[in-house]
């Protein structure tokens, strides 16, 4: 762990261009993804060349080129650190983050013609989750993970944890991508039903724990959650400024401006709790300790998250939230037949077919949260140590 990497790092402190470019690439992808959902909710017509798609592909290209450039630099024009501090695959050298970003770019490249054929063969985006979209999602995941790893390795190499800020930022994007992935299930009207909590318990503890465990700044999980909330809010505030018109029938809700995402989940609060739990966890933890922590972290997540979202969603679906800041109950897709359902919680009835919050449902959420947190503990523990 201790070696010339640090020495050189201290001597050669410079702008971390490649980390910044990869962080920018993953930001572009996340922004593009939110923009694309907005496009589908507002305009409806989709082509390869929409600006939202361009933002996603720009992010992929940026990630792939940055990764490729790092691989070329480390393989053909290495300095001392680059020669000995990279991951070698078949004789080619690059930092781990660069390799994963390249992998992500190749996956995104693979999905583009496949997706195009898919539309021609089975219809224009019948379902969001289709095989070519999963390949695309894996590619996006690769770019974001590459950005995280590049920043993590630098943060772990530098004696004073320099680069921790970029790492927390890329972690925020990582949470954001996860939130976009499950956005179909996180509408405020669904936040008094059990499925919402199960989905979030599976998705978010892993991401928050990874950040909390491996970030080298104070409150890393909470800061990453804030990055997520801030970026989502920025999209929420900016998108409705742009006039747009639906171009696909049937139009039940004649929107006049871009439909933004809903107000972000209040992940900051459970993240604070989890940061507190992991504050003095120490460098190396055995599997047993990880399990013990996960049992606590799962409970912390479920309890704080339930309390926060339960109350906040009551506010969000009320008239009180109908302002530019919270935009509660304000923006609905052009295809929505607006009626009183907007002001109610959905699927809250019990019994078969219902999705009420029961002890059993919360038990399932807890188990999911524990498993998710455990994976976060194991992965985050490794992320603490990666230096290449």
């Amino acid at each position, binding site marked *: *762990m*201790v*070696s*010339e*990497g640090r020495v*050189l790092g201290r001597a050669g402190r410079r702008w971390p261009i490649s980390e910044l470019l990869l962080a920018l690439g993953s930001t572009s992808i996340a922004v593009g993804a939110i923009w694309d959902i907005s496009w589908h909710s507002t305009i*409806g*017509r989709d082509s390869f060349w929409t600006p939202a798609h361009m933002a996603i592909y720009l992010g992929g290209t940026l990630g792939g080129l940055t990764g490729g450039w790092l691989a070329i630099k480390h393989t053909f024009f290495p300095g*001392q*650190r680059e020669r*000995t*501090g*990279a*991951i*070698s*695959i*078949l004789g080619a050298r690059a930092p*781990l983050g660069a*390799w*994963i970003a390249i*992998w992500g770019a*190749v*996956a995104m*490249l*693979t999905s583009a*013609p*496949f997706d195009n*054929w898919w*539309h*021609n*063969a*089975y*219809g*224009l*985006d*019948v379902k969001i989750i*289709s*095989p070519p979209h*999963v390949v695309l999602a894996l590619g996006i995941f690769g770019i974001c993970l590459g950005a995280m790893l590049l920043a993590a390795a630098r943060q772990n*190499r530098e004696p004073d944890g320099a680069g921790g800020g970029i790492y927390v930022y890329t972690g925020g994007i990582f949470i954001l991508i996860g939130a976009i992935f499950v956005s179909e299930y996180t509408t405020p009207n669904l936040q008094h039903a059990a499925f919402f909590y199960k989905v979030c318990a599976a998705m978010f503890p892993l991401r928050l724990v990874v950040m909390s465990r491996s970030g080298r700044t104070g409150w890393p999980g909470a800061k990453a959650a804030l990055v997520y909330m801030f970026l989502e809010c920025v999209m929420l505030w900016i998108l409705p400024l742009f006039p747009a*018109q*639906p*171009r*696909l*029938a*049937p*139009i*039940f809700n004649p929107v006049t401006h871009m439909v933004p995402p809903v107000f972000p989940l209040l992940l900051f609060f459970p993240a604070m709790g989890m940061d507190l739990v992991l504050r003095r966890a120490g460098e190396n933890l055995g599997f047993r300790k990880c399990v013990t922590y996960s049992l606590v972290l799962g409970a912390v997540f479920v309890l704080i998250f339930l309390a926060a979202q339960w109350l906040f969603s009551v506010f969000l679906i009320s008239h009180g939230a109908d302002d530019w800041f919270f935009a509660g109950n304000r923006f609905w897709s052009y295809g929505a037949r607006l009626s009183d359902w907007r002001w109610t919680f959905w699927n809250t009835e019990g019994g078969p077919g219902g999705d009420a919050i029961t002890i059993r449902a919360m038990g399932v959420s807890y188990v999911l949260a524990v498993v998710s947190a455990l994976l976060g503990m194991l992965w985050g523990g*490794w992320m603490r*140590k*990666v*230096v*290449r």
Partner: protein
Amino acid sequence: VGRLDEEGGAMTRRLAVFLAVLFLMPLVAQAHLGSPDVFFEGKIGAYLTRVTIRMPTVVPGRAEISVNVEAAEAVTVSFLPLYSRTAISNAPPPDVGVPIRGETNYYAGDLWLMTSGAYGIQVNIHGSQGDGSVEIPVTSVALSQLPLPRWLGGMLVVLIGLLVLGGAAIVAGAARDGELAAGVSAGKRNRRKGLIAGTVTLAILVFLLVGGMRWWASEERAFRERMRGGAWPDMRLTTRTEASQQILELTLGEHDLRPDDPLSLIPDHGKLLHLFLIRDGEATAIAHLHPVRKEGKTFQVVLPPLPEGRYRVFCDMTLASSSMSFTATNSVQIPVPVKSMGTNSLEPDPDDSWANYAAAAVPLAEATNAVFTFADGRRVVWKRQLPLQTKQEAGLRFEVSDAAGNAVSLEPYMGMMSHAAVMRRDGTVFAHLHPSGNYSMAAQGYFMDKVAQESGAGVQMASMAGMPGMNGMPDMPGMDHAQMAQMHHAMGGSVISLPYEFPSAGDYRIWVQFKTGGEVRTAVFDAEVQ
């Protein structure tokens, strides 16, 4: 693919088989009996216009529309798909047609058809001679399975192989070297760790790949179940003799429709069903009949005196629930007529028509100037440009004259100057044509009513197809101007012009029906399409 065989070879072989099946997949089902594209010819406002709508093979999909306007000055063309089940007020603004470079008054654009069902494509023209619009009905259904191009399949195999192997190599490298400080080489323990991590990752990736493949296969199956490419719904045919009549009974949708589905139909030219019987083999006999409902989904019709033999049967209908039009098909053996005593119970439809001719009477497909001569010397001439090409204007323009060569005045037959049937000789293509186009007039009436009702303009307008005037009266009260203009364009004179493009290469037979001197005639032509 072979490179992946170190892990789960059987699985990758299944991927190879699956991809191979996709490559080799033919068009398994034919569009609306092989002829999905829709053509319109007639007046829109003051402008004589020809519209071609090329339908997508999937839903949701994009249709391509082109509009050719006969006008000296430039006009503005716009189009808008209206969905049968949603209010027109919920439609987006129309799209303006983009002029095709190098052409005059020829416009093109895309139509986004997002749902299965019936759409009325509203075409609007705005020019110095005034405005006009027309609704052209199309049926949006998944038609066929698009094969995966070889290059794309090959590229997918290479790239996915790269992702699987590359992913495993990256994880192996990360596990081996990731935690080592610069300058420290991986020891035996780390190399072992890398190997294990790489192998496990490879196994996971191959597992995911197989899962993805199965997922793809299940999407493929679901798509095929939705596909309405061929004939629909199912049709059972039986014949029976009652008194001196031979009766053909048909039951529709025993399998494809729910038992409680009442099969409500919109009459087209005043008839619920248009049935074409075409004798197999030399196809020297044809009948165009109009069955009436017996009960539920069962219909019956008196058979005209047709020679015995096996007949292909095509049955056109338009559903009232959605205004979608479909063609059902099957074949039936028509026996030698047996006459017996008794009272006939079923009235033949006065608009039923049939023809029986010698095979030698059909003009040769090679003739540029194809002439069909009736027994009384009347003639139908098809002057055509050979060779006939797929997806090119077929030039179905027929001149009718008497034995002396004088033009014959045509009368409307079921409201049209002509009804024509086109069949590819193998039966995979069948289309029912009119001078105004090859769409269902009943479905057009449905959309015209919808526009009139929802815009509040034409309160007095009745459904066109249900009007008594449709059966032969040139003056049709209740029709809107667009419709009248279309009719007038086609009426009078001795020339029949049918807008159509042959959808695929092959040998076709065309039956052109018209009425003159109170009698329906059927001329027959062959066409070889390249």
